[in-house]
């Protein structure tokens, strides 16, 4: 990309020069917008400077620009340039490579090209490797090509690629390496790399563990949704500030100017320990029928209750030493004991990390 000229970028932008974008607020507070996109049949890109807008600016020569797709030199066949752009973009093999790489990066924490949005297209062909000391950019160039082929063969089925990846041996490797781990092993994906859950995943995990799912209505959906991962837009759930606040606090971002940030901060840890959004779900709340309430009302043994709590929150049985520690801290007040345990399990590292 470094050798590209500004005029090439302008010709790429020209594909959108016949587009109209109408932004319409859909709620009373102008917080949520819907964008209606339509296309004019004529027009092209005339550049930015016009005589009504004076001032010392760098000159833009060469306007009007006709659209040319930068990677292939192709020009649009018909008048709807946006549709043509979409066709050209998706037909380009790089689209398939980038898509499968994004999926890989989600499931394996690290992409075959990482970061996934910074491909060096000059260094991806194993038949034309770059000059030393540079190496190929993908850690597994043949695998990326094979995954791209499969994606195209399956008619771009995301479902197919997900199934392929999660059913693989590579995906099922433990996060604990059997032996002494060396950083040089990392490019081989020789173990699973733990990652902190995304904001939506954390919210969904908390409500599932504590049995406090609550329907959220979404603009344009006829049925409410239960899970944050189902929300289509960062302005949702527009009716529930507490959920939006939770998601913002854990770095959902606004999908536009504020990028997603899944690095932990001390404020997030304070929130997890002390905010009512978490703590209210750990109490015996018969109105909400929380996990603690349900377990308290069951007739199972204490050990079985601990086991159920571990399964519901951490997805696993307690280890022997964990059971011993929990029993050592047992208090007569069962509600207090179980509610404490729920809080502790939510604040454990293996709750908030995918490993």
């Amino acid at each position, binding site marked *: 990309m470094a050798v590209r000229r500004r005029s090439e970028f302008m010709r790429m932008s020209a594909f959108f020069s016949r587009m109209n974008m109408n932004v319409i607020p859909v709620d009373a507070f102008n917080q949520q917008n819907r964008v209606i996109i339509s296309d004019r049949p004529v027009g092209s890109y005339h550049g930015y400077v016009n005589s*009504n*807008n*004076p*001032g*010392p*600016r760098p000159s833009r020569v060469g306007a009007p620009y006709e659209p040319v797709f930068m990677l292939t030199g192709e020009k649009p066949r018909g008048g709807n340039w946006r549709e043509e752009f979409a066709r050209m973009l998706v037909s380009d093999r790089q689209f398939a490579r980038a898509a499968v790489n994004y999926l890989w990066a989600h499931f394996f924490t690290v992409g075959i090209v990482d*970061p996934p*949005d*910074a491909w*060096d297209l000059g260094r991806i062909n194993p038949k034309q490797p770059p000059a030393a*000391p540079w190496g190929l950019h993908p850690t597994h160039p043949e695998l990326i090509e094979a995954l791209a082929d499969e994606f195209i063969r399956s008619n771009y089925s995301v479902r197919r690629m997900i199934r392929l990846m999660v059913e693989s041996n590579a995906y099922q490797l433990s*996060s*604990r390496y059997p032996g002494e781990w060396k950083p040089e092993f990392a490019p081989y994906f020789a173990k699973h*790399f*733990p*990652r*902190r859950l995304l904001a939506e995943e954390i919210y969904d995990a908390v409500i599932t563990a504590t049995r406090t799912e609550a329907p959220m209505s979404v603009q344009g959906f006829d049925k409410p949704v239960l899970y944050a991962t189902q929300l289509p837009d960062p302005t949702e759930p527009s009716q529930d500030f507490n959920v939006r606040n939770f998601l913002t606090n854990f770095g959902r971002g606004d999908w536009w*100017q*504020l*990028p997603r*940030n899944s*690095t*932990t*901060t*001390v*404020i*997030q*840890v*304070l*929130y997890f*320990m*002390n*905010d*009512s959004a978490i*703590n209210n779900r750990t*109490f015996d709340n018969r109105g909400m029928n929380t996990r603690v309430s349900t377990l308290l009302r069951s007739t199972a043994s204490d050990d079985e209750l601990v086991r159920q709590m571990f399964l519901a929150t951490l997805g696993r049985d307690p280890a022997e*030493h*964990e059971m011993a*520690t*929990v029993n050592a*801290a047992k208090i007569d007040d069962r509600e*207090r004991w179980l509610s*404490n*345990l729920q*809080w*502790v399990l939510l*604040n*454990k*590292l*293996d709750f*908030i*990390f995918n*490993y």
Partner: protein
Amino acid sequence: MKGCPSCYKMTRRDWLKQAASWTAFMSLARTGEAQVSVSPSANVRGTARACIFINLSGAPSHLDTFDPKDGPWNPFDADLRQYPGGIVLSNTLFPQLSKITNDLAVLRSVSSWEAEHTRGQFYMQTAHPSNPAFVAETPHIGAVVGLEKSSDDRLPPFFTLNSFAGQGATFLGGKLQPMTAPTNAGGLATLEHSFYGNESQTRFEEKFKLLEDLEGPLRAAPFDRRMADHSDFYKSARQLMYQQGISNVFRFSSDDTGRYGDTNFARSVIVARNAIQAKSGTVFVNVTQQGWDTHQNMFDRRYTPSIYQLTNELDRAVGALVEDLKASGDFAQTLIVMMGEFGRTPGDLNSRGGRDHHKYAMSVAMLGGGVRGGRAIGATDRIGDRVTTPGWSAQRPIVMEDLAATIYSALGINWTKSITDTPSGRKFEYVPYAEYGVYTAVEEVFG
């Protein structure tokens, strides 16, 4: 470029060629030799204990802030006045700062490398160009300051207030990540566990102890660095809780908001003041003021934001901040910097009553922390288009690398340092090419 003294259109390559050790630098770059070097001639001032960096996000018009000129573009109420040292300010826009020009150093010969917000913000936050290959190892200046200076562990060393969408600590690690606290008058509610009335702290300690006991094995052998960082945060968070001194940092009274203003920005400046005055480990506070991207209606008071609104908000909060820091004896050791990512188009306004992006000239204001005030450094031409007088020893426009060196110098940090044990092995220089003297601190700011 040669033979045109008033045209400072220097490129980076021109500057490097003028560096005395150009050949030495190039040979080092070619062999990829990575060494930590420190230039012995770096004059590190060490006059400030901490820095409050006010990020004027959106890029303020220099002609309507710190570098005003007489011209037909000014509104009728501009009321420009001259102050000692060559400073010119609008009394309408900056009534408070106009009273303390003896503390103010205005740098008018600054130039930006960028004309676009994201890249400009990145450059301003890190003093490095935004390069996707290196972004993961380009930390915020605040994180570097935290690394160098923080000794007290009670408060995080690096704060960022009033919305943060930018670089964090990257490879420098979890403890140096910026703390982004919300700013409400009631303070930070999550500093206490409060669900059981008087028994709350006891209940909290009970839960926390069980957590520590249960988590012991995983904390001792975390799966990786990210998990280790996350568990460290539990220790840091616990240390912040139930401490009067810490929770007071996040509290303020209606007296405070009466003086600073009651906007998100003003409240953030109050918290910045508190964090600095607490002297509990915070050494860099980045406070962002949004809204400076004034492409239209700058002087229309009915439009939000107008220049009147932006400068009033800034002037009022910084005026009160300086007053309070002087009263607590902290002003001389607290460096305050006000800057945006680039300047705005000079001379006449555009067709919508605003100004657009302009990278060739911009202004930066500094106070406190060893800054010798009552001075304007450098000058631009009649309409504010290009730098005509650099006003400092390097005889060229000041750029972000120089400003970072100046900030590091004030804080007692040798800006020519670099770190070689980064995850990639690539050397991270605090200020690019600084050890070769290409960029340097603006000594004129201090004396």
